[in-house]
């Protein structure tokens, strides 16, 4: 587990939002490695609907950064084929909700080509995709499908929660020799979201983890980040929910040990174990629906490995088992009220 990025040296006081950090990671990898190229819907000429690839086509040309037709299956399959041939493609799926047309290629091909060719061929692609809600996107622009991918052996699943991590993790993902699904929490592209949706939006620049060092750096896949150190309980979260949990705990004055998992597969189980063995209480928070969500896996692992340290059952706070609604977004979203109540209950147990 690495220390919080808060100590990033003051000389590198460059503050970026998450989009800028991602853009910079892509820029660096395009410059360093001629085998890297970027493609997806509207990523070239337009620079991406969230601007994550802005300026890259102008800088690296249309061979390295190019637009595709609206063909998710074709996009992902092309990336797998290029990867098998030795290249290092970075494909963008505009929203995670559109990844399903390409799911067969991810599951049946990308995840398995190494295994079934006994390592002859691999698929070192990265699929970047904005995911998660909180932006009034309704059911086709808000989903959190990460557990579908963690369930497939042969894939890595990465979810950053700060600009600093987004850059380092994306570089690591691109350099990784396995297929990586890189989900970007779009709600926090422009600022950390506390979950108190009626408060003014916070920009990243006031957050310590918006300090992003220049140049190439890598955050190893499989290392959780400790966001806050505490004794009351361990909370496991990733993406947007890291910030929501943090805000709720501060607001309530509960000293939680908050781990930002950063990568779901590979998982930093050792960091989780160290924390839960100390606190004896564990809560898992994710925005995705509850049943068979990644929280179920975490709860199972915690009770398998740390049962005798637990003073209370592992608690989950998640999205409801429903499609993401158009209206009622804040009733669906596992926000401060639900998280706060759950913390109180877990402390009483």
């Amino acid at each position, binding site marked *: 587990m690495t220390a919080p990025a808060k100590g990033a040296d003051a000389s590198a006081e460059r503050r970026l939002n998450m989009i800028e950090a991602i853009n910079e990671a892509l820029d660096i990898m395009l410059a360093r490695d001629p085998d890297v190229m970027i493609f997806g*819907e*509207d990523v070239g*000429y*337009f620079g991406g*609907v969230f601007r994550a690839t802005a300026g890259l086509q102008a800088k690296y040309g249309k061979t390295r950064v190019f*637009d*595709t*037709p*609206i*063909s*998710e*299956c*074709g996009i992902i399959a092309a990336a797998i084929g290029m990867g098998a041939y030795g290249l290092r493609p970075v494909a963008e799926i505009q929203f995670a*909700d*559109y990844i*399903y*047309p390409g799911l067969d290629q991810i599951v049946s091909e990308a995840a398995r080509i190494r295994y079934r060719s006994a390592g002859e061929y691999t698929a070192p692609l990265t699929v970047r995709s904005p995911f998660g809600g909180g*932006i*009034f*996107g*309704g*059911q*086709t*622009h808000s989903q959190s499908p990460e557990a579908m991918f963690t369930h497939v052996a042969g894939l890595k699943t990465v979810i950053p929660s700060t600009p600093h991590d987004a850059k380092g993790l994306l570089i690591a993902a691109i350099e990784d020799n396995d297929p990586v699904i890189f989900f970007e929490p779009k709600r926090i592209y422009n600022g950390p979201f506390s979950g108190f*949706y009626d408060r003014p939006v916070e920009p990243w620049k006031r957050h310590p983890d918006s300090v992003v060092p220049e140049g190439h750096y890598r955050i190893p896949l499989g290392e959780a980040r400790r966001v806050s150190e505490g004794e009351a309980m361990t909370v496991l979260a990733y993406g947007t929910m890291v910030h929501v949990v943090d805000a709720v705990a501060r607001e309530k004055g509960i000293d939680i040990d908050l781990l930002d998992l950063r990568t779901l597969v590979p998982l930093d189980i050792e960091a989780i174990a160290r924390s839960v063995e100390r606190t004896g209480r564990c809560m898992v928070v994710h925005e995705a*629906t*509850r*049943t068979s969500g990644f929280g179920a896996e975490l709860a199972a692992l915690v009770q398998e490995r740390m049962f005798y340290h637990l003073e209370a059952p592992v608690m989950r706070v*998640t999205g*409801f*088992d*429903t*499609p993401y*609604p*158009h*209206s*009622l977004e*804040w*009733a*669906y*979203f596992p*926000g*401060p*009220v*639900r998280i706060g*109540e759950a913390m109180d209950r877990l402390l009483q147990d």
Partner: protein
Amino acid sequence: MSKPHDSAPDAQVPSLRSLQDQFASNTRYPASADEKLAFYRQMLLIRRFEEKAGQLYGLGLIGGFCHLYIGQEAVAIGLQSALNPEVDSVITGYRDHGHMLAYGIDPKIIMAELTGRHSGISRGKGGSMHMFSTAHKFYGGHGIVGAQVALGGGLALAHQYNEDGGLCLAYFGDGAANQGQVYETFNMAALWKLPIVFVVENNRYAMGTAVERSSAETEFHRRGAAFRIPGMHVDGMDVLQVRQAAEVAFAYVRDGNGPVLMECSTYRYRGHSMSDPAKYRTREEVQEFKEQRDPIEAIKRLLVEDGTAEDDLRAIDKEIRAIVAAAADFAETSPEPEPEELYTDVLVDSYSGSAPAIPAAEHAR
């Protein structure tokens, strides 16, 4: 109409150009005065409704994604006015307000869906992109680009299976035309002679991507050729042309000949969605369509030439503004759905999975 297993593999294949030739011999629908007036009224309703939706979005009353149909009105009106609403079905993508209005669905409940209210047509849970009406055999309203085309294949198969004489009208965009599933459906539709009209609303852009930058074959009406689906190419800015093309295509499909692929050349005046400043095209291009090819202005000119009094047209204008204002009022004042609505219609039986009961809503905080 034949069922799939009846259609002999060597069934006679019509010439791929036969429909276009037939259409080209007479491209203007001989509309009566009343019909022209009706087209005018309906297109104007869409235009004003969409303008109002744009305003409500600007005021923050509509959230999320909202795609306006302004500029494309003649397509939905020309085609849907030729349908038999008793038996035919319609399905489209997320730019769906116009197709619903063309069907005479109450503007109030459409607008209330956009604002996410309980009285909306999907009880506020679908939003702008996801609206449906069993009463009108309108099958949505789909946010996933291209998915509706394949679903349309299923609707057509159901028409055929039930021998109900209906056809399916499946709309999609020039961008959607590059989804693989569209071609799976083309093949099935042609193989089984399904009663379906595939309509490409070619408005030249898929978000910020111009057709030439995403499509190897930009003449979308030719894309059925490999499946022996006859194509038609229609000026989608001219409601009388669209209607005439509909007559030709629908007659062919109703005769059991299988699918038709119709490309309507059209233009969206606004950005892709409300958050798109549309910098990928020139002002001049937009101005040209607005000033020289506007479908509403065109039919208005015809009406005036035919001797319709300006006062009568103004009266229609006024009436439509009132309808749209009432829809906006309704959509602003209707209550939001109760939090319990989250769990309705997930499955037939109310189902709450393993999740706890919904606690105090966040917004009750």
